[in-house]
């Protein structure tokens, strides 16, 4: 479902200053598996996508595929992907943050908190065909909830079966965005020091002033960073949409599938590379913003 790796906001851990000799070498050796991983699963696919997007099927250099990104159909697709990701990221971030806030009052080791943490971990990964099926079974045309509502005289599909179109993707996406927000934002919220609240009280502040002067300014960078992560998560999601909406390939990952697998419009495999390139650029920008914001957030943690 997701290619984004949940990142724990940290920055507290600074590596010890490098020592010379054997331990230095050991440190590099220890890093080697990670480097290999990054090369194989991040750098190599990026290079391949770049390469296939810049060449035609005969292997000659061409800018046609990249130029095809300006095609109105493709532009619409990128726009659909962007607003869908943005909308679900913001909704997921706000709702997820509220859940985190509610959990603050619970004991960190208590059963409720543990249960919510575990559930968030599971639901953040509950995507793809399973999730699509769950939605079809509950609010599909013949779904349980749909039938109950129809019985009560409410027809949620009066304007047509939107559940299998772009708007129908919002609900399933929000479904996995909220728990991902809980996982990634909770550590930042937990890092709010009780001493700050005490200092606020000592200085004559109120509960409201704690949030407006301390809490929100401190949390804002983390919140923004998590929202960006959610955006990237939604932007790269594929399987849920593939199982729900079969017509028109309205988001970029589906458009890539069409270019790669179509048996009616042949010879567009390299367009998939150009599309992937477009996605890499968008996600690259988002990740760059993320690191900027995260650097600010790191100041307050530790």
């Amino acid at each position, binding site marked *: 479902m997701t290619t984004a790796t949940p990142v724990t906001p940290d920055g507290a851990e600074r590596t010890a200053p490098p020592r010379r000799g054997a331990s230095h070498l050991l440190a590099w050796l220890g890093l080697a598996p990670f480097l290999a991983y990054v090369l194989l699963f991040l750098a190599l696919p990026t290079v391949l996508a770049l390469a296939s997007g810049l060449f035609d099927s005969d292997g000659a250099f061409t800018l046609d595929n990249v130029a095809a990104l300006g095609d109105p159909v493709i532009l619409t697709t990128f726009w659909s992907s962007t607003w869908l990701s943005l909308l679900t990221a913001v909704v997921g971030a706000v709702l997820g943050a509220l859940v985190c806030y509610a959990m603050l009052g619970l004991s960190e080791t208590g059963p409720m908190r543990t249960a919510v943490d575990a559930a968030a971990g599971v639901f953040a990964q509950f995507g793809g065909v399973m999730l699509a099926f769950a939605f079809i079974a509950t609010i599909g045309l013949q779904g349980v909830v749909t039938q109950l509502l129809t019985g009560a005289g409410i027809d949620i599909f009066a304007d*047509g*079966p939107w559940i299998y179109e772009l708007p129908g993707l919002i609900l399933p996406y929000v479904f996995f965005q909220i728990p991902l927000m809980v996982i990634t934002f909770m550590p930042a919220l937990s890092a709010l020091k009780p001493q700050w609240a005490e200092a606020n009280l000592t200085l004559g502040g109120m509960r409201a002033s704690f949030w407006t002067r301390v809490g929100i300014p401190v949390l804002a960078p983390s919140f923004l960073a998590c929202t960006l992560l959610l955006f990237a998560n939604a932007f790269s999601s594929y399987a849920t949409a593939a199982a729900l909406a079969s017509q028109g390939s309205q988001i970029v990952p589906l458009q890539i599938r069409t270019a790669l697998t*179509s048996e009616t419009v042949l010879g567009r495999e390299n367009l998939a590379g150009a599309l992937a390139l477009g996605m890499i650029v968008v996600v690259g920008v988002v990740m760059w913003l993320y690191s900027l914001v995260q650097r600010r957030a790191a100041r307050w943690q530790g």
Partner: protein
Amino acid sequence: MTPLPRTRHLLAGTAAVVATAIALTGCATDTPASGDAGKAATATSVADFGTFADLEAAAKAEGALNVIALPRDWANYGEIIDAFKAKYPEITVNESSPDISSAEEIQAAKTNEGLDTAPDVFDIGLTVALQNTDVFAPYTVQTWDDIPDALKESTGLFVGDYGGYMSIGYDSSKYPEPKTLEDLLGADYKSAVAINGDPTQAGAAFAAVGLADVQSGGDLDDFQPGIDFFSELNKAGNMLKLDVTSATIASGETPVVFDWDYLNATHVADNPDWKVRVFPGTGYAGYYNQAINKDAPHPAAARLWQEFLFSDEGQNLWLAGGARPARMEAMIAAGTIDADAAAALPEAPDTVVVPTEEQSTKAGTLLGEKWAAAVQ
């Protein structure tokens, strides 16, 4: 007597297409010298093995057959594979990726080249077949002469094996029978009409637009009237954009479906009230083709599989699945056809069309530009 369907219609339409195919690929192959009879990979007929028993022995010695993209509920493939397994228990049939597209089959052959896991045989749409003849090995089955010329590439690089007409399947317990295409735009079919796939991806869905096109008075040179029909269907709130599977039919999620008649026919198993309707007037036909991977890891088994598919037994199994097999005419003449299964096929349309490769390409380009916006 004609309780049997008129396959001639179907063939007449296909003839033009394969004529192009032959023109394109006519010079692609030479028959290998007759000396290397033992080499299964270059065998172009049973004669290159010696006898049919020699072919069977060679295939059994290989012990495996890799098939790809054969959904068990597609044109009776489940039963066909099981019958092959029962007949040749010595050969393990490895079924991989049943739901991928024709284009992906070719990719699978290329990415697995030289490996044991590469597909031995392909089941592909005509557009993909025409563009990938360099991946195929020529082979003529024993029943070659029975196969109408219109369906086969002259050296046997690929051969049409089963086909049918684009049709409407519907749940007769909840929806009235659509008499014409226009009926589907009516209020009776609210949120009900689905296509099996996206026309810019899947051959069957492409054919659905083709049928809408010719039924709305358009011709195959311009698919726009077909696209317009689905655009209207979408505006009427009748179009469903969910992918059709046996599960969505069984649950009633996709109650009215554009698909090949033989695929729609199989849904009776999921819903006893399921009926298939082929509109009168101009019909839209299509055949799927068999081909052998020229780098097949099990070349003898691949050839034996072809022999099986084009045997009376294989052809009747397709017929039992509601598809029209390539040798149907000859088998009717020879009396080897399964007459009950043949009589159960839906009535054929008055005239039948099949797009040429050029028309296909043009329609594909048009769909690429217009489809997404038309059904948004």
